[in-house]
């Protein structure tokens, strides 16, 4: 009897521990049933499907599923071949993303990977992608070092250091003499902080916190004592933003607030703090807000597929353009395994117009996109007006 219990316990644990991460939402999955007859063109995707950035990761996953379904309905690629996306959870962590890339390259034999979302994911996957000549294209990661991560590593998103620059320009323009900068210890916020340090002409008092920290009360008590002219909160994860703002509000903070772009795009993040954000003149550096027909169609497809409005719309637009670029590259070289051909195609992209606007890819593999200043009004961030 006891042995039966032990066996049952072990089975249940194995079931619990493995099953949830292999499901549609949180793990390694394939896109829905394919109607085309040719062999699928496999594309890997590394996104944070669990952990503090999972909400954003899952939103991008859902969008990618909707986009691939649409592309396959339109006839797929290379004649009758459907696109198949194989998702892996990068957990916003370099080590996990390296394992994910390993699996995609060695087991799934993909030649192209979309992602990661967080910079540590992209930087974790980059060495393997480079070594195996697999094209890695991120639509979100902002760390400066991604520009030098390899010949096969591309970025269709603005660099984080430009986010630091735009915030420094804003702080100077507002006449702030002393800014308290609180950064999460992660690649993207560190890039933003480095540039803010070099570009801001006033005094910076810096505090840092490790990823996963949930108690900010001590840091807040400390920075209140410092009496800066403004507070620049520079997180990697949405979870850090929500917890920090809750505790900042409880500490009755009064003063201008500045943020990096990671906090922009999900109205649910501001539900309990909207009034507090408005009263403290909150601004953020965000992607250039573009609205065009292609973006409208993309968001409509998302809504049709998932029965609700899409979050993080600016990120979905970037990802849509990344997928479009990849399919165009495959179509041009007529072979998804010809990664050198795909790489050369991407380096040659000039004045590409997509859902996120018009851009070119430079010698570092960057789309050279930029940030613009947005301010918090009502219940969301809106483009800044002088």
């Amino acid at each position: 009897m006891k042995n039966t219990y032990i066996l049952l316990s072990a089975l249940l644990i194995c079931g619990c521990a493995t099953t949830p991460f292999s499901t549609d939402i949180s793990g390694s999955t394939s896109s829905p049933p394919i109607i085309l007859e040719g062999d699928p063109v496999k594309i890997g995707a590394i996104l944070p499907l669990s952990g503090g950035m999972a909400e954003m990761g899952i939103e991008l996953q859902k969008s990618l599923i909707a986009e691939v379904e649409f592309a396959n309905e339109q006839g797929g690629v290379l004649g009758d071949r459907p696109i198949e996306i194989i998702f892996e959870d990068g957990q916003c962590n370099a080590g996990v993303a390296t394992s994910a890339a390993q699996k995609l390259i060695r087991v799934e034999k993909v030649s192209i990977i979309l992602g990661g979302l967080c910079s540590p994911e992209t930087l974790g996957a980059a060495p393997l992608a480079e070594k195996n000549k697999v094209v890695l294209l991120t639509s979100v990661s902002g760390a400066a070092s991604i520009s030098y991560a390899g010949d096969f590593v591309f970025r269709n998103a603005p660099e984080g250091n430009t986010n630091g620059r735009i915030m420094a320009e804003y702080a100077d323009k507002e006449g702030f003499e002393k800014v308290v900068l609180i950064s999460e210890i992660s690649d993207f916020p560190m890039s933003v902080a480095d540039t803010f340090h070099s570009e801001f002409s006033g005094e910076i008092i810096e505090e840092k916190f490790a990823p996963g920290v949930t108690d900010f009360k001590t840091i807040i008590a400390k920075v209140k004592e410092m009496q800066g002219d403004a507070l620049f909160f520079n997180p990697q994860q949405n979870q850090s933003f929500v917890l920090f703002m809750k505790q900042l509000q409880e500490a009755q903070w009064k003063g201008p607030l500045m943020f990096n772009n990671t906090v922009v795009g999900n109205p649910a993040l501001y539900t309990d703090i909207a009034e507090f954000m408005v009263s403290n003149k909150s601004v953020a550096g965000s992607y250039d807000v573009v609205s065009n027909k292609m973006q409208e169609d993309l968001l409509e497809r998302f809504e049709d597929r998932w029965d609700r409005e899409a979050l993080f719309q600016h990120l979905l637009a970037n990802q849509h353009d990344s997928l479009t670029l990849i399919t165009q590259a495959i179509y041009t070289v007529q072979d998804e395994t010809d990664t050198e051909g795909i790489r050369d195609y991407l380096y040659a992209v000039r004045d590409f117009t997509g859902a996120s606007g018009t851009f070119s890819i430079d010698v570092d593999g960057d789309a050279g996109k930029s940030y613009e200043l947005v301010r918090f009004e009502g219940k969301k961030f809106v483009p800044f007006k002088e």
Partner: protein
Amino acid sequence: MNELIAQLLWNGLVAGSLLALVSLGLTLIYGVAGFVQFAHGELVALGAYSMLVFHKFLGLSFIPAGMAAIILVIIFGLILERFFFRPVRDKNPMIPLVISIGLSIGLQAVLQMVFGPQIQTISNIRFESLSAGGLFLATPSQIIAVCASFLLTGLLIFFLHKTRRGRSLRAVSDNRNLAQIFGMDPDVAMRWIFGLSAGLAAVAGIFLGFEQNLEPLMGVQISVTAFAAVILGSLGSVRGAILGAFVIGFAQNLLVGLGVVPSGFSVAIPFVVLIIMLLFLPSGIFGKKFEFLRK
């Protein structure tokens, strides 16, 4: 400066109070069952999510919702004891330890599947912070959490020392075989200990939910820190767990707040304390030996 120190002391008290509730559960289980229950943090998370369901989704007011959440987590703790830990009670202590690690990962995944990965709040009502004589700010939930923690800790100590059932639990903890000879049932002791620790975890989870919102991995950090607190006080010691929790709570807040260590280092403080303890006072403040390390 006085305001800063007062605020840091209050923050330390809040952190220590919540940590004490979690540490007590861990140390009780170790004391009686003889292993470290790694899924204890997930019971904390389950307490918070149960409160979310009863209060926000089912519309119960705070106190009935809290009571229902605590009862639910106690039942869940008893189920874990009955079906996962009792069958392996007399096996190598590594077996329940590995089972608890598996349960921890599995429960995190289940919480994420059921409630989604996004951050949730138990209540949309925002309580204004109260000022204590202009020295520091405290939220109503923090004040209740500190009071509840002191009350429950006191009741637990009273129960363990002044009641027949409590004394029998301590007897089983000291020497299970001898206690059995004197007619005490180890199965009953296990049930009591898992029920008590699950109840304490649920209370901690509810207050943690008010303090830091909810997300599926919310139990991980506090349980790891509680583990450090338990070792600091010495594994299996109730007084040690309480002392360890407050030492770590105050150390994290004062050392970072006063600039002794950089703020980015705050999560490492419990483990630095732990390493120092293991090097210089390996049996913990209250002196029990580390049997589990020697086995």
